[in-house]
């Protein structure tokens, strides 16, 4: 554990988590601290730029990128409870003036669960969560960051988030009919293509409910925000919970 204390680790809290799901950020911070990591939180951080870029306006993200670089230069690791935002940084963080720093950050940014399994090499954890849980594989984390094997490939299976959930005491992971189908959030897609987005979400929710999920968890709160909106409209007792909150439970 000692080594972890000398690592310079910063957390990147995506804007919508900061504003609407602070409990996810708190769980991330506490979880990392309980695992012996000294965590910094650069306070002037805002957003990774993905909402603009996915809408076609990557060329408007230059000043946001500069801000990101100012906030996160000089750390050994940048950890974030979002596969999607991390993938965006990895693929698209550029700067016309500070490209070297941008390259460095792109190599040092980690999604939370991969940081736990690959860097901290967590092999057991004393978290407790006595519920039936469905794991939603958020696409950008899964196919983009390769956090889990995708069903399209003829290749051996693995899943970093699942391996962590399996260490949690009392947690029963349910099976799904479609283990890696997109939830339909998709950034501006969720409003631009409202009908398909909602239908995709309803179908995901139905798969989890069919197998008796009490909670739906994921690496990305954006997927969960969308699924939560549908669950609440259906007045379902099933709740969403970010994987950081589960891993931080009972620690």
């Amino acid at each position, binding site marked *: 554990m000692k080594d972890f204390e000398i690592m310079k680790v910063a957390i990147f809290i995506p804007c919508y988590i900061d504003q*609407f799901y602070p409990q996810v950020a708190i769980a991330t911070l506490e979880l990392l601290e309980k695992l012996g990591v000294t965590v910094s*939180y650069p306070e002037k951080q*805002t957003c990774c730029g993905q*909402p*603009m870029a996915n809408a076609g306006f990557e060329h408007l993200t230059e000043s946001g990128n500069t801000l990101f670089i100012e906030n996160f230069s000089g750390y050994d690791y940048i950890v974030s409870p979002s596969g999607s935002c991390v993938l965006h940084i990895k693929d698209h963080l550029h700067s016309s003036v500070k490209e070297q720093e941008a390259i460095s950050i792109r190599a040092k940014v980690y999604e939370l669960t991969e940081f736990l399994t690959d860097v901290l090499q967590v092999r057991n954890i004393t978290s407790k969560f006595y519920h039936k849980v469905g794991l939603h594989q958020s*696409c950008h984390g899964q196919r983009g960051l390769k956090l889990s094997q995708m069903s399209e490939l003829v290749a051996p299976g693995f899943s970093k988030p699942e391996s962590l959930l399996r260490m949690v005491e009392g947690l029963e992971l349910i099976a799904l009919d479609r283990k890696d189908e*997109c939830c339909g959030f998709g950034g501006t*897609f969720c409003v631009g293509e409202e009908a398909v987005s909602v239908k995709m979400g309803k179908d995901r929710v139905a798969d989890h409910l069919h197998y008796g999920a009490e909670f739906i968890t994921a690496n990305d709160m954006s997927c969960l925000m*969308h699924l939560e909106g549908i669950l609440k409209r259906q007045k379902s007792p099933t709740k969403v919970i970010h994987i950081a909150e589960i891993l931080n439970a009972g620690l």
Partner: protein
Amino acid sequence: MSTDPNSFNHSTTSDHATLADKFNLDEPRVDWHDKTLWFIRNKRDKAAWQLPEWEQLRESASQIKNNVLSNLHSYLLQFEKNAQQNGITVHWAATAEEHNKIVHSIIQKTGISQVVKSKSMLTEECHLNEYLLTRGIEVIDTDLGERIVQLAGEPPSHIVLPCIHWKKEEIGELFSKHLGTPEGISDPQFLTAAARIHLRQRFMSSRLAITGVNFAVAETGEIVVCTNEGNADLGVQLADVHIACMGIEKIIPQRKHLAIFLRLLARSATGQPITTYSSHFQRPRKGQEMHIVLVDNGRSERLGSNDFRNALKCIRCGACMNTCPVYRRSGGHSYHYAIAGPIGAILAPGLDMKKHADLPFASTLCGSCSHVCPVKIDIHDQLYKWRQVLAKNNYIGRTKKAGIKGMAFILSHPKLYTLAGAGARWLMKHIPFVVNNKLNPWYKQREMPDVPQQSFNGWYQQNRKSK
């Protein structure tokens, strides 16, 4: 023929979201459509898993196609030379219009007024049927699925399964209207038999056959056409004239490469190990005329673009459609282009950016398409790149653009961001109607998230800064 294929307006102006919205009015039908295509995706998975070397095959196919694209000029000339030596007349068409003119002039010379055509997405792309029909030539599509949509006056909704959006009961009604089958029959075997009788008459009476091309082998000057119904063979064998129409990207260097592509194509398309017929046409029969029309129609321009060239690797298997969660829930016609789904969404804007500016946004960028693709086209990355091109060329609405600009400004100023966040949360908490109304597309079928008292940043200032 009582239905005019022209009745479907190809230049339909509704965008994907609007058409998808309509498709979703009938939710049980969406469920049925989704499950039907997911079943095919599953069949593809099972077939792929039977080959331990599946990923190697994909990589090989991808590399062969890369080689083809890098040397297309030489391969095309080699193919032309060998085809001509085999006795085939080779034509070059720069555009869809030119392609249609060439085909029409060949038909005109024969004086034939009714032709049979096996499946060809290229002729769909060029709107050949409509072109010929307005010049007094009737085209009978002989692929069963294509014949069904043709009778219905619709374009195909899927490149491999043209009438996948039709239920068997509806096909029964359609046949009763057009082929005179008794009403109320939905037995697939009966309906197929009726179609067979109907198509046989057309085959027997037609002296000219048009086919598509799946692969054109540069080394031998032969073309390969893959079908499950044998309709390409029947058409060609009975006809005095065979016209094969192909995009210039259909070239493969050598015959041995078919060993890779034929294994990938049917498994990716339908989960079959191979199509029932893989027919090689190398030279005309004695007394037969054979023509090949090589079509560019924007492909050379595409080839010159680093970001988008590898879309030309496509072998038209349709796997990206079957796997696409958006395609499955919006239907092929919502893409208002001959080729629907993810691959259509990256091909269409290359032909007409303005008309197809909506298509790259008909995706969540989930990435399933790129990984199911047997030739490894980076489809979802190209969707992202098309969005950038469309925005830079002003094909995105002004309201959206203004919103994005405002958002970019706020998000690059931390103090402003904190203020705006607090403001938005205050509004949502105290005057929820500002977001919980019918003008907010999120709220139409979803609740808004609960609003927390403070942001994480606020919490951090309060709980951690003082320590």
